[in-house]
């Protein structure tokens, strides 16, 4: 279990990283927290010619709030977000998701940007970003661009990132007093990828909820919005919402859960998350 030989370069700047990626024409990989990449290298599931280490890039490691937007630098470590007062206050969905992500040792090294760029369909953060209607900033050979979270995820481990692109920032709308967040997942062991999970947010209204966003993970090739269920919850009808799951989701079974089980659990999670959304945050 030793990786094939590879070259290593430490990027001095975002532009330097992009030019290194360009020189290797798609055969280079970015090294951030390394929590997925190193395992795939050791198991020889991938053998890039070059690792571009971006860990020391300046300015990608901060969490800030400006003009109603929370911005995470791509190199923000999970542990940093987990312990951040700012995240707890302005991005409560992400704060709720954090303890479910793997184990402390992994959260110490793993980065927010790495998790989103890797786009594991069972990962928590991609679903959170989709539920929040977030935006991803990408730096590439032709400058910087922003894409919405829903446009960013394209399939299993597939994203809008091209071979010479670098994810630089993640932006989500800052929560206010009317924001409600809900998060739940079912994993066999704490820290495992979930059999099924749900990230949700909504606005509290006088009579109930509006703008409900439901993003499931572990049920498809990427985060899946449950739009019919969202509409049902906007109308305040949880029973209808649970029934709508059957049309919203079409999960494929895997080693740990059949399609039938995933669908069933999606309904169970919806009830649990709906209760969270309906509660006044403390």
């Amino acid at each position: 279990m030793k990786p094939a030989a590879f070259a290593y370069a430490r990027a001095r700047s975002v532009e330097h990283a992009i030019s290194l990626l360009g020189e290797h024409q798609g055969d280079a990989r970015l090294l951030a927290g390394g929590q997925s990449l190193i395992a795939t290298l050791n198991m020889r599931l991938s053998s890039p010619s070059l690792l571009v280490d971006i860990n020391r890039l300046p300015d990608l490691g901060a969490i800030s709030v400006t003009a109603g937007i929370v911005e995470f630098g791509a190199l923000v470590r999970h542990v940093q977000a987990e312990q951040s007062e700012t995240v707890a206050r302005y991005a409560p969905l992400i704060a709720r998701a954090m303890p479910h992500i793997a184990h402390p040792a992994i959260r110490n090294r793993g980065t927010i940007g790495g998790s989103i760029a890797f786009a594991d369909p069972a990962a928590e953060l991609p679903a959170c970003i989709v539920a929040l209607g977030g935006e991803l900033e990408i730096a590439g050979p032709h400058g910087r661009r922003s894409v919405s979270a829903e446009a960013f995820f394209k399939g299993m481990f597939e994203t809008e990132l091209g071979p010479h692109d670098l994810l630089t920032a993640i932006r989500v709308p800052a929560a206010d007093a009317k924001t409600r967040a809900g998060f739940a997942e079912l994993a066999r062991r704490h820290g495992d990828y979930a059999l099924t999970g749900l990230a949700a947010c909504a606005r509290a209204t006088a009579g109930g909820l509006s703008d409900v966003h439901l993003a499931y993970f572990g049920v498809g090739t990427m985060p899946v919005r449950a739009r019919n269920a969202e509409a049902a919850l906007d109308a305040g009808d949880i029973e209808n919402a649970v029934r709508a799951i059957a049309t919203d989701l079409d999960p494929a079974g895997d080693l740990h859960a059949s399609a039938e089980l995933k669908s069933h659990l999606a309904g169970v999670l919806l009830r649990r998350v709906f209760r969270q959304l309906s509660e006044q945050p403390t």
Partner: protein
Amino acid sequence: MTITPDSPSVLTALDRPNSYIGRSVPRPNLRRLTEGRGSYVSDTVLPRMLHVVFVRSPHAHARIRAIDTLAASKAPGVVAAFVGADLTEVMSPWVGVLTHLKGLKSAPQYPLAMERACWQGEAVCAIVARTRALAEDAAALVDVDYEELPAVADAETALDPQTPVIHPELGDNLTFERRVNAGDPDQGMRDAAEIVEATFVFGRHTGVCNEARAIVADWNAAEQRLTVYQGTQAPHMMQNLFAKHLGIAEQQVRVITKDVGGSFGVKVHAYADEMATVAIAKLLRRPVKFVADRLESFLTDIHARDHRVHGKIGVKKDGTITVFEIDDLTGIGPYSVYPRTSGIEANQVVNLTGSWYRCPNYRALARVVFQNKNVMCQYRAVGHPIATAVTEGLVDLAAARIGMDPVEIRRRNLIPDDGYPATAPSGIKFEKLSQEAALQKIVTMMRYDDLRAEQERLRKQGVYRGIGMTTFVEVTNPSPTFYGIGGARISAQDGVTMRLDGAGTVFCHTGVSEQGQGTEAVIAQVAASAFGVPISSVRVIMGDTDNTPYGGGTWASRAAGIAGEAAWQAGKALRANVLALAATILQAQPQSLDLRDGIVVDAASSRERMGLDEIARIAHFRPDTLPPGFQPELVATRHYVPRAWPFAFTNGVQASYLEVDVDTGFVKLLRHWCVEDCGTIINPLLVDEQVRGGIVQGIGAALYEHCVYDERGQLLNGNMADYLVPMASEMPDMDIGHVVTPTADSELGAKGAGEAGTAGAPGAVMNAINDALRPLGAKTLTEMPFTPGLILRAIGRI
């Protein structure tokens, strides 16, 4: 966690003034290991050492048409490439059979596959290079031309006429079969008011060691001697096997076992890749290292369980059990593992099922079949979790059928504590068990009646909790009955040599081995107590066939009971020698003196006479001052092997309290109890931790661990992400209690404690889940591991 106080033990010869027996002495290796100063095989680096990696079959069954190693041989750093035929010139094949398992058959196995690969992961080619990374680079260049053959994956159909026979020369795929017909099973069926039956399925799983299998082999051509550094449970057994199959004398082989990162039965077998490493070292005349990586471990470390048992129980209205009947089928891969064989687990299931109950009527059939999956062999608590879960699952079903409390039905049927010695229908013999006392103790510890009331109350709120219980026995301290009489050269006895050095310190050499379980501490405690010195003056030497008494090693919960007794006797003998010397110096009678805490004292008054250091000084440096003709003997060796009983059976009872989320099918373990009786407890902390660790592995079997194969014999989850080992977050608090019934076969009275936890836990969890779901009219769950999908299906939610 709470540690329930042990039963007060009766004062015996073990209660010497400075006895460490019964005390939770910290293990001597603790600081070294926790400070990262352990020395494992992976840490071993020798001059001119090479690394070997294996090209493994991707197919469950395939003919090897050709292997092209040309490109690999020319790759950077590569020293040699070997295929099966290359190694036959130095190493002979082996066949995993034992003569006392009548009819057991298997085929010759070679270090590298010859013309066929018989499981996914079988090594077919070896690449040796300067580094592991270079060897892996080169291994990727080996081109093997396979012709895929039909795979025998399903044990159920392995004996069907249309199923291919894996080893045609054997005639069929049946490895071993055993039948028992004891008492009058038919009469037992007729006497029963109710007959309950169920089919229990135990998924294949494996022992996931922290440290993978590892070996460094070094053939010294000048000495004509092989030194093997190996993480093994049984160094002398491996010495014999290496010598035998290299065709050299045993004294030409030295096996050194330093620290071992867990073994659980995984590291007590001859593995083809390790045998190949030894053969290659001999051919190349250079040290060669092999360390299995995690993916190789899943494909090649022995798997275990994989049993399907149809069980029947007959019961009268008053709860009397009238008959047990089982039909066990197990698939063991393409070879019976050498040298202990893969027939032992099924044999144990037959021996043990129902054995601790009074019911005399028993019918059993066990069939062991070949299949194209990884080999299966002895993993912690061999056969016990199966026999226990089947027996106790049936007893619970019978209790439910006649409307009797699960504790009550056990009370009425257990062999009473005054009913020993006893012989079970299968023929196994119990010296003395304490099932009634253990059951009573656990009922008190867990507040059984209160729990039942809580369960009832919560059910009304839609919370489904279950209480499950297992009583069980455990095979420990095996005599030669286990392997020796079947022809395996695996020592049943063990010896301890104690040596007094010039400073009055003691070296204690023993053939048992430390795997991380604390044997070193236990031997030091016994030796220090018997001899009469502080434990800090005792250094235990293990794991070196050149420097320890020939012995069996660590397996079947034998180290404390067997080597512990040898240490006790050796300590006593050396004390007698030292007191004879002291008596000469002090002009006293030896019997008037004693050695206590490193000081010779007057036995009666405890008055200090002289220090052991002074005695050692005189003995070693000034023996000229001793009377003529007096020769001090400063080394003593004693051996021990159980003689009176084939095994020192222990017993115990476990209980699980858990909650099933009926929406998700998830099981939350709330608490677990175990009361066990391992006889004299040498180190309560180590015993309790053995029990807890064993319970965790048993819970793994019940809820998580499963080697999932597809119908083509492909392992689908051979990695740490997909193979679920039990983790701390999901484990309950465990309360451990003891009943102490020493074996009269030894002075120490210690039996084994290594496997009780694993034996009882899966059945307890199974019974608790079924107990939780009974009010929902659930289908009885009997297929491990109990996943959310299985549970939701049983209650009709999916």
